[in-house]
């Protein structure tokens, strides 16, 4: 069985929020409007958050490291952290859900079943990453706007929790095709919308159980870390630390050796 996982390279991430929109359009995530946004009710299965790193260098574990001395700005620095659901191996939300509306599927996806959910928001409270969203109001797609709804994903009603599903409908489609052709799922056949859309190619997605897959390799790389590892949730989404400028591999050159570089 696969264990789907993702690696997000924070060095590549530009903080452009393409993943957010890709996710919203793919999964029929509603917008909440100005009346609700300021109350913190906007739904983002995939949110890019801004981490402020104070200049004196105190930083929390799990945050991208600042490279001191490379930025002459005396104040704090900002870093951008794209946050999908972490799909923990030991998810606290699954433990506390009173109605089994959220489950850990056999292939490692923490699923939310909105049609089962009673909206008690316990999972939301228990998620250390705050990656669950409650529908504080009925979805509102005025006029023709609802035509753009993706028919592969249900529209959640009011009063239920929703969250990132790693675009499980794409997995179903790919799996069905693969089974029909009597083979395993190919590596590139199933990627979530955010991974597909990421313009800076910061996200790598695949089977963590397949040691040859890029995602498994990256997840073991020395740059890799996982958020809030001390809580023991074992997220299946890992991050790669930001690097600093390195120019040593090609030695500094004048105009003369330019041909050498090109060759």
């Amino acid at each position: 069985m696969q264990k789907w996982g993702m690696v997000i390279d924070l060095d590549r991430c530009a903080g452009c929020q393409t993943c957010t929109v890709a996710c919203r359009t793919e999964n029929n995530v509603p917008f909440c409007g100005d009346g609700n946004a300021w109350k913190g009710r906007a739904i983002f299965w995939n949110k890019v958050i801004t981490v402020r790193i104070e200049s004196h260098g105190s930083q929390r574990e799990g945050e991208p490291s600042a490279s001191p001395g490379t930025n002459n700005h005396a104040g704090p620095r900002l870093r951008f952290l794209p946050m999908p659901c972490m799909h923990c191996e030991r998810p606290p939300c699954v433990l506390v859900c009173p109605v089994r509306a959220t489950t850990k599927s056999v292939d490692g996806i923490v699923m939310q079943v909105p049609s089962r959910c009673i909206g008690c928001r316990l999972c939301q409270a228990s998620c250390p990453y705050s990656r669950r969203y409650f529908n504080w109001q009925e979805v509102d797609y005025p006029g023709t706007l609802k035509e753009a709804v993706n028919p592969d994903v249900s529209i959640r009603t009011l009063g239920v929790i929703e969250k990132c599903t790693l675009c499980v409908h794409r997995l179903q489609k790919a799996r069905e095709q693969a089974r029909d052709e009597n083979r395993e799922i190919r590596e590139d056949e199933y990627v979530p919308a955010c991974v597909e859309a990421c313009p800076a190619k910061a996200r790598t997605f695949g089977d963590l159980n397949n040691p040859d897959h890029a995602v498994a390799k990256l997840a073991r790389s020395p740059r890799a870390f996982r958020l809030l590892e001390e809580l023991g949730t074992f997220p299946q989404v890992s991050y790669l630390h930001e690097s600093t400028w390195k120019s040593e591999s090609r030695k500094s050159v004048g105009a003369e050796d330019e041909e050498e570089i090109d060759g």
Partner: protein
Amino acid sequence: MGDRDISVYLRPLLRTTWKAYALLAVALAGACWYFYGAFIYQFFHGHRVTGQGTHGAMWGTIVANIVQLIGVSHVGIAISATVRILQLKRYQQLARIAEFVTLVSLTAAVCNIAGDVGRPDRFLYNVVMHGNFTAPFVWSATVITNYLVGSCVYLYLAMRRDIYLCSRVLTRRRWLYRALALGYSDTPEERENLERTVWWCAVIILPIMVSVHSVYGWVFGLQPGRPGWFNPFQAPYFVLGAIVTGFSGVVAVVAIIRRIYRWEQFFPNRLFKGLGVFLGFVTLLYLYFLFSEVLTGLYASPEAERGVFHDLLFGRFSWIAWTATVGGMIVPFWVLFVQGANPKIQSMKIVVVGAVPIFFAMWGWRYLITVPSFFHPHIPYKLAEYSPTLFDWSLVLATYCFAIFFYTALVKLLPILELPEHFVPARPVRPPRIRLATMRGLGFFKRATISFTLASGIGLIAYGIHSRFDVLTPAPAIWISGIVCLWTIPLQVCLIPGFPSRRHMLAHRARQEPALLRPPRPLVTAVGLAERSSSPAIESWVDRHQRAHRGIRRRARMRVWA
């Protein structure tokens, strides 16, 4: 002369003033708003009408209110059971008032929970049919059902004799009391049976009471994702909090009832003094718990957790925390301590003045348990301020309206004081004439049903727990029905006639029951006092009562069965 006159005891049932009707009307309006607002308005508009938000407080005043109400609900049964087990006669009349408080606040709490979830239509069905064994919420559903059913059974059984007497004394709503008495006829066997059952119920219900609030503590305490909640201390802390809240609530309720019905003789200042001393003691204990929790929090290593407690003491919530702690705990404790320590002071007012702020302070601390934690997530999200909307506050208020309505209705429908044993029906209704063989059969039947119920109850619970991960089995429904099954045992013990007693056999053999064959007299005179006290001065109601009690039991028996 109050204790001699049954009308003193049944004052609420005999006369209802316009004030009571007005109170009922206002409270009913509030209760209606609660049910409209929480279940209809909120159901169709979503929880956006509240002040809660995902990146903000996802739980707010309503959850604080739930915790508070569940806390209040504990103490009723606690007092009642303690009084019964420890035979604290002085506090005996407190028992039912407190039991009613339990029933009312527990119902209100359940309503609040149902209103707070996003989809109340699915709530009951899904939790019961698809409950997840590992979820504290399911445990809480289990224990709250258990507690609600148990306290109803306990309350009913403890009240059964009084209801029976009501059905004999009162002309109004006689059908109700007769229905509720369920065939009770205050024969000594019945009474003995009842008392024994009730005693056992009290023994059983005490740990259940502890479990409910522990489980509510775990609803918070088993969430690693929330700084400030994930804490082994949570369960005892919640239980103690419940005792403090409940006691302060009960003190207020008793004071109001004493004032309205002029029952100074049943609830003398001395009794309040005792309550005050106990409340002061638990408040001090709670302060100690609080101090120890906050201290740990302030030294906590996870930054987010430290942030919560810092915010609590010095940040945006500090005004609530400090007002609640100083104004609602330290000062009231001092008041209660002084009144307890000073033998000259015996005043209901002082105790109430001490207790009421504690109630509100506890509400404040519930809010502080719930909300600040959301403002220090592990991941630095941008957060929205939580400002409870008018709707939130109206729901909180309306909950208490509902509680007041419910409570007043109970007071007006059921005997709120225990009728002392010296009240006996002069002419008991004729017990059914059942043939001895039938009686024997019933005896076997009773044993069979009880053991069957016991077996099936335990079996159901075991099966429910055994099949907890089976998707096709509604495991919580099974174990909850097992629990409900078990709670029918005390009912069966009391309701189903058992083997005929020796006395019955004798009577049967004699084939004549002269006293019972006589036609009943008019009801008002059907109940009389078995004995008139020789000493008119009321110095100690309790002493006299106890003396009378011993005499009555003996003489009454003689009179009826002579």
